[in-house]
């Protein structure tokens, strides 16, 4: 067992898979010599050499295009898009290519690649470098979308993503790179499409991903201490496939549900989850499902204004308290 930062866990996960399988390669802007702008790929070039760790030009289309070609011809590339926001530059691959290849070739051509992106805010990078793009990716059939919140989950889910025969979008959270957690020794391989109940509770369910997970856990502790509200906290970990069984079972126990989302309110992933719960667990509900989200505004750059946009522990506590008291 070792204490690793989230960014060290990314490098460890990549190294674990590159050591296991020679077909796994890493490419992206500054991922090799510089060890990544977030230092999340530190040491990969030194260990695996320039043939398998490639610095690319500043062209997101070139990165994803070459990754797709490599994947179709037998490699298992891990491509990095430095900021999730930039995926818009190369969106054709996400929207039209990766997830459709296997289907359109009747399974003759597969696309086993992973696209890593630094997602989300909390580090005052402004409106074009702080967005949460889960819902930009999860709407396309054929794509899987993973968003870990802890170092151990980073290693295990990254390994599962690399080994998956289909394209996987892997959303690392910028605001979590410096956070630490216990990571077991040895090889770690997790399962895509599984949520985790991080804190059992009886009064309501908080559903979160990424940086909203630690904030929801802190909110749950505060709700318990100050208001006697016992909240269950679920880390989705995977948005596609979605572990609806765990979510619905939790709603069946607590009868109240809150999504905690960093993305703007309109069409956030929480809307999809609330819709599923309304379809399948309506008569388990003791009150309206509540989405705690960023407002529908561009994210501010100054830290004190950014903090007003992204749901804080205090906002989560207040939303839950008010809704349960109503």
């Amino acid at each position, binding site marked *: 067992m070792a204490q690793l930062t989230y960014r060290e866990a990314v490098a460890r996960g990549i190294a674990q898979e590159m050591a296991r399988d020679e077909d796994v390669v890493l490419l992206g802007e500054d991922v090799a010599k510089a060890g990544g702008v977030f230092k999340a790929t530190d040491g990969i070039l030194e260990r695996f050499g320039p043939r398998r760790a490639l610095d690319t030009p500043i062209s997101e289309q070139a990165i994803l295009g070459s990754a797709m070609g490599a994947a179709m011809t037998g490699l298992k590339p891990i491509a990095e898009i430095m900021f999730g926001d930039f995926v818009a530059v190369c969106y054709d691959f996400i929207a039209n290519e990766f997830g459709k290849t296997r289907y359109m070739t009747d399974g003759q051509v597969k696309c086993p690649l992973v696209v890593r992106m630094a997602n989300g805010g909390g580090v005052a990078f402004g409106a074009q470098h702080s967005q949460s793009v889960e819902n930009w990716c999860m709407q396309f059939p054929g794509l899987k979308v993973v968003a870990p919140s802890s170092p151990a989950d980073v290693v295990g889910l990254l390994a599962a993503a690399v080994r998956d025969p289909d394209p996987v979008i892997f959303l690392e959270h910028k605001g979590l790179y410096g956070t630490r957690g216990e990571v077991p020794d040895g090889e770690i391989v997790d399962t895509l499409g599984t949520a985790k109940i991080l804190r059992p509770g009886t009064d309501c369910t908080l559903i979160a991903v990424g940086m909203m997970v630690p904030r929801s856990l802190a909110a749950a502790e505060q709700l318990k201490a100050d208001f006697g509200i016992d909240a269950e906290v679920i880390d989705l970990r995977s948005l596609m496939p979605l572990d609806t069984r765990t979510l619905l079972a939790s709603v069946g126990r607590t*009868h109240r549900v809150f999504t905690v989302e960093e993305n703007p309110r309109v069409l956030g992933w929480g809307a999809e989850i609330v819709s599923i719960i309304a379809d399948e667990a*309506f*008569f*388990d*509900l*003791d*009150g309206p499902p509540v989405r705690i989200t960023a407002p529908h505004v561009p994210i501010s750059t100054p830290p004190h204004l950014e903090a007003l946009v992204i749901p804080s522990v205090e906002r989560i506590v207040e939303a839950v308290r008010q809704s349960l008291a*109503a």
Partner: protein
Amino acid sequence: MNIVMPSLGASVSEGKIVQWFKAVGDEVAAGEPLLEVESDKTSLEIEAPASGTLSEIRVAEDDIAPVGEIICILAGADEQPAETVEAPAPPPASPTAEPPSTEDVPGDPAPPPVRGRSQISPRARKLAAEKGIDLTQLADTGAPVTGADILAKSNAVPAADVSLMYADTPHQRHTISSMRGTIARRLTEAKQTIPHFYMSAEIDLGPLEQLRNELRSKVGECPTVTAFAIKALAEALRAVPEANVVWAGDSILQFERADIAVAVALDDGLLTPVIRDAGGKTPSSISAELKDLATRARQGRLQPADYEGGVASISNLGMHGVGRFQAIINPPQALILALGASERRPREADDGSVQFVSQMTVTLSADHRVVDGVTGANLLAAFGTRLQAPDGLL
């Protein structure tokens, strides 16, 4: 001051004037009863919100007015009720609320709290429907109604009432075991939902006693009376196939063999293991199987396959000295046969003399949804004939 028809509760849109306590021209003091109104749910007295003269009555006794309509006018009353005025009329609504259209009204009164659909949760609605709880009978606490409220109402209240009733009587409290809970639920359901009817017959046990004595002396052991009765009931169901049925909700299932369940008493309840195709087995094999099932039942080792299904049950309390009794059908079965004790009873013989014979009274309980009286009588007769000629059962 305009006095309007008050809100008489959620989903009530109009009220009827039962009686005016004051006539036009009367002086009225603040807090004095002015009139009585009623709806289909409640009735209440309305007090004058302020002192003044009743200058006009707009809605006569026995007439109906919609909630919010002006029913009378109090002249000389302060537009703003004085501090000394008692809060008029009971909640939920203020009868003094003035319609917003009148001239110099400072502001709209707050709408009365109404428990709308949105304040009863979907889960609470579902649970209330399942448990037969009338949502309009819930106390209005102002808070939304949740599933927990319904569960509290359906479970806790009656249990608490019973405990309260015996609070002064020395007693021990036992929790309900899962078997006891199941028995309580299934038999309550059976007695409430299955239209039972009952018929009894006397059965001569002389031939059976003679046969069992012979077997005992020849073979050393013999099947129990219950085993013979199971075999006889199975044969009777074969002879009266219209009784070999169960009610399946939207259809009737008629069986091609007779699976007979037997009530086995345990220390803390009972189980009813099933002898499959009892008609195809001999009394001695039924007796052996019954012994095995009863042993395993008492050890708690029965599997669902051992006690599920069956068309009829047999319950024998004869060995406990019970002369006759009526049993509750074990759902989803349609029949249960209750066996009483063997008794020596006087009977008039062919020559007019009195002889004593061994007899047992059996009582059939039948589900009238699928078995009619004549069918039950035929089954009982077929059962008696066979048990009184037991050689044919071997």
